[in-house]
C-alpha cells in the first residue's frame, strides 16, 4: 500500500513528461493524459485514505538521496492526517479545475503546453504536501514557483502577462532567500532537517534554539510570506491574475498560495517555542494583510482582481490563525477556502468567457437570468466566503475569530472589520455583475457556459456548502492534539461555534450582515460606482492599491538598478584584462603559424635544431 502515495506523486510528472515529449501536437491525447493523471491520483488518494484512516499515526516512507559527511538528504513521504487531507484537497480541487480547463481553454493555441504545465504544477504541489524534510520541501517549493511562473506567463505574447510572471517569480525568490537561511539555521542548531526528528526533539533540545528562536522562526516565515503573498510581499498575487482563469483558481487561490500556510502548520513546533516572539509577529502580519487587502478589494473593478485581493485577505486570516496558536483552525480555513475560492474563480472564468474576455464588472450586469448555474454557484461561494451559517466559510472563519477573541482582542476586532468588508465587496461584486441591466453590448448577448465548465462549478459548490460540517476540522485537531475528541454528531457540529464561543460567532455573523446591508444599499440599483464621490481621495488610494507598486518602484527597484549599473561598469573595466588575454593568444597564434609552411626542409631544420638544443642541455 505504501507504493500508492509514490504513484500519486509521480503520476502528474509522468503526464507532464509524456505531453512534452510525445503528445504535444495531439490536443485530445494531451488533455487526456493530464486529466487522467490527476483524476487517477485523486482516486488512488481516496483508496489510500480509506485504507489508512485518519488516525494520527505518522507513516514515513523514505530513501536516502545523498549523503555528504554527517549531512544526509532524504527523499521521502510523510503520511499523517495533515498531509493526507491536503493530498485529497489538492488532487480533488485540481481534478475539478483540470476538467473545467477543457472548456475554458478550448480555443487556446498553447493547449498542450497549458496541460503539461498544469500537470507539472500538480506534481510540485503534491511534493510539498508529502515532503518529510526541509530540503525536499524547499525543492518542491521552488518547483511550484517555476510552474506558477510558466502558467502566469501562459499568454507570454502579452507583455503584461510576461511581466506578471517575472514579478511573481522574483518576489517569491525574496521570500525564499529568507526561507533558505531559516532552514540552514535549523540544520546548524539541530543537525537534522527531517520533520519527524525535529518534532521528536525534547524540550531540553529546543532550549538550544531559544537564542535564535525568534530570528529562525521569522526566517522560515519569510518563505510563507512570499508564497502566501503576505504583506509586504503581497504585490505579486494581484498581478498573477494575468494568467488564464483556471490557473488563478488552482494556483493563486486554492493550492499554491496555501502552501505557505501549510508549511507553517507543518513546522508549527519550531515556531511555538517558549521565548520566541515569532508567532506574535506572524499573527500581526496576517492581520495587517487581511485588513489591507480587504480595503483595497472594495474599490477594484476587475472581477479577477477583486477575487485576488479577497484571496490575499483570506490568506491573511489563515496566517493570523497560525500566529494566534491555532494551526488546526488555519488549516480548516485553508480547506474551505480552497473549495469556495476555486469555485468563485471558476465562476468568474465562466462569466469572462461568456463576455468574450471582458473583465470589468461595470461592463457586465444582468447575468442572473442568462447564466443561472453560474449565478447560483457563484452565490453559494459568496455566502460561504462571507461566512454565513451554515456554509463552510462560517465555521472556519469563526474558528479563527474565536481563537483571536481568546488571545488577542485587537486582532479580533480587526478580523471582524475584515469580515464586514469581505461581505461588502463580495455582495458588491455579485450585485454589479449579476443584477440590474446589462451595462454593455456583450453582456446583453451572454449565454451560459458549456456543461464541461458547469459540472466542476456544481461539485465545488456542494463542497463549499457542506465543507464545514463534515468533520474536517476534527481531523486537523487530532493532528495537532491527538487527545482531542473525535466523532461529533452532525447536529452538534452545526451548532458547535454557538455553544463554544457564542460571542465570536454572533459578532462574526453580525459583521457579515452589516457588510451585506451596506453593499445592498449602495449597489442594488447602481450603474456607476457611488463610493468614489463619498470617500474622495481615500477611494483613489484604494483603487491604486495604496501605491505599493509605485513605492517599491521608487525605492527597492531604483536602488537595485543603481547596484546593477555599478556591477555593469565593473564588468566593462574587468573585461579589459580578459581582452588582453584574448589578444596575446591571438598574436602568439599568428606568429606560430608562420612556422608551419609545409616545407619539409624547414621541419627538418627545426628538428635538427631541437636535437642540438637537447644535446646541449643534457651534455652541458
Amino acid at each position, binding site marked *: 500500500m505504501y507504493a500508492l502515495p509514490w504513484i500519486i506523486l509521480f503520476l502528474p510528472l509522468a503526464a507532464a513528461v509524456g505531453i512534452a515529449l510525445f503528445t504535444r501536437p495531439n490536443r485530445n491525447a494531451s488533455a487526456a493524459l493530464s486529466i487522467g493523471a490527476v483524476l487517477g491520483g485523486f482516486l488512488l488518494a481516496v483508496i489510500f485514505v480509506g485504507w489508512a484512516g485518519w488516525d494520527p499515526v505518522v507513516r514515513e516512507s523514505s530513501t536516502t538521496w545523498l549523503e555528504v559527511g554527517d549531512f544526509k538528504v532524504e527523499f521521502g513521504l510523510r503520511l499523517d492526517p495533515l498531509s493526507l487531507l491536503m493530498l485529497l484537497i489538492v488532487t480533488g480541487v485540481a481534478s475539478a479545475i483540470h476538467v473545467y480547463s477543457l472548456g475554458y481553454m478550448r480555443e487556446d493555441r498553447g493547449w498542450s503546453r497549458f496541460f503539461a504545465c498544469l500537470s507539472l504544477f500538480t506534481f510540485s504541489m503534491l511534493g510539498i504536501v508529502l515532503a518529510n524534510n526541509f530540503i525536499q520541501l524547499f525543492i518542491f517549493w521552488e518547483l511550484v514557483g517555476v510552474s506558477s511562473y510558466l502558467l502566469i506567463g501562459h499568454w507570454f505574447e502579452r507583455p503584461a502577462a510576461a511581466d506578471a510572471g517575472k514579478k511573481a517569480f522574483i518576489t517569491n525568490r525574496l521570500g525564499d532567500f529568507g526561507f533558505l537561511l531559516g532552514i540552514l539555521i535549523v540544520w546548524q542548531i539541530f543537525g537534522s532537517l527531517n520533520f519527524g526528528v525535529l518534532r521528536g526533539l525534547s524540550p531540553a533540545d529546543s532550549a538550544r534554539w531559544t537564542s535564535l528562536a525568534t530570528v529562525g522562526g521569522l526566517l522560515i516565515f519569510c518563505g510563507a510570506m512570499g508564497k502566501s503573498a503576505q504583506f509586504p510581499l503581497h504585490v505579486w498575487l494581484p498581478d498573477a491574475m494575468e494568467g488564464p482563469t483556471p490557473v488563478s483558481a488552482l494556483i493563486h487561490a486554492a493550492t499554491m498560495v496555501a502552501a505557505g500556510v501549510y508549511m507553517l502548520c507543518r513546522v508549527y513546533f519550531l515556531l511555538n517555542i517558549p521565548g520566541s516572539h515569532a508567532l506574535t509577529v506572524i499573527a500581526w502580519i496576517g492581520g495587517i494583510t487581511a485588513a489591507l487587502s480587504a480595503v483595497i478589494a472594495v474599490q477594484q473593478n476587475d472581477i479577477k482582481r477583486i477575487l485576488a485581493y479577497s484571496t490575499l485577505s483570506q490568506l491573511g486570516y489563515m496566517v493570523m490563525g497560525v500566529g494566534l496558536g491555532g494551526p488546526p483552525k488555519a488549516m480548516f480555513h485553508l480547506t474551505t477556502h480552497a473549495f469556495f475560492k476555486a469555485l468563485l474563480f471558476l465562476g468568474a472564468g465562466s462569466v469572462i468567457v461568456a463576455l468574450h474576455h471582458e473583465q470589468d464588472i461595470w461592463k457586465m450586469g444582468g447575468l442572473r437570468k442568462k447564466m443561472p448555474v453560474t449565478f447560483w454557484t457563484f452565490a453559494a461561494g459568496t455566502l460561504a466566503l462571507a461566512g454565513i451559517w451554515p456554509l463552510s466559510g462560517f465555521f472556519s472563519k469563526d474558528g479563527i475569530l474565536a481563537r483571536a477573541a481568546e488571545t488577542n482582542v485587537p486582532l479580533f476586532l480587526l478580523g471582524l472589520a475584515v469580515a464586514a468588508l469581505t461581505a461588502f465587496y463580495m455582495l458588491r461584486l455579485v450585485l454589479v455583475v449579476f443584477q440590474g441591466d446589462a451595462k454593455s453590448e456583450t453582456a446583453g448577448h451572454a449565454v451560459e457556459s458549456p456543461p464541461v465548465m458547469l459540472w466542476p462549478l456544481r461539485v465545488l459548490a456542494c463542497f463549499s456548502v457542506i465543507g464545514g460540517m463534515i468533520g474536517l476540522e476534527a481531523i486537523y485537531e487530532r493532528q495537532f492534539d491527538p487527545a482531542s475528541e473525535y466523532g461529533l454528531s452532525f447536529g452538534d457540529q452545526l451548532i458547535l461555534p454557538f455553544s463554544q464561543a457564542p460571542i465570536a460567532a454572533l459578532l462574526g455573523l453580525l459583521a457579515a450582515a452589516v457588510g451585506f446591508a451596506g453593499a445592498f444599499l449602495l449597489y442594488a440599483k447602481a450603474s456607476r460606482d457611488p463610493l468614489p464621490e463619498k470617500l474622495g481621495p481615500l477611494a483613489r488610494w484604494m483603487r491604486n492599491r495604496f501605491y505599493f507598486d509605485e513605492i517599491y518602484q521608487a525605492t527597492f527597484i531604483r536602488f537595485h538598478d543603481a547596484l546593477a549599473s555599478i556591477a555593469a561598469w565593473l564588468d566593462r573595466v574587468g573585461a579589459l584584462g580578459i581582452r588582453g588575454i584574448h589578444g596575446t593568444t591571438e598574436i602568439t597564434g599568428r606568429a606560430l603559424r608562420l612556422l*608551419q609552411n*609545409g*616545407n*619539409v*626542409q624547414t621541419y*627538418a631544420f627545426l628538428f*635538427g635544431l631541437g636535437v642540438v638544443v637537447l644535446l646541449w642541455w643534457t651534455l652541458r
Partner: protein
Amino acid sequence: MNVGLEHYLVVSAVLFALGLLGVLVRRNLLVIYMSLELMLNAANLALVAFSRFNNNLDGQVFVFFIITVAAAEVAVGLALIVALYRKHQTAHVEDLTLMKD
C-alpha cells in the same frame, strides 16, 4: 702517424654534418635522399670504429643490419619519389608543400 679512434670519429662527424647540410639545403629530393644515405653511413663508420677499438663485434653486426634495412628503405623511398614525380611533374621540395593546409 698513429690512426686512433678519434680520427675515425672526426671523419664520421664530418660525413654526418655534410649529410645533414645536404638534407637541409638541397632542393632536389633525389639529392636529399643521397644525403640521408650519407648520414646513415657516417653512423655506420662510427659503429665500426667503436667495434674495432673496443674488441666487440656487436657494432659490426649492427652495421650489417643497417645496410640491409637501408637497402629496403631505398627501394621504398625511390618508389615514392617516382610516384610523386609522376603525379606532380617535379621532385623539388619547395614545390611540395601540400601538407601546409
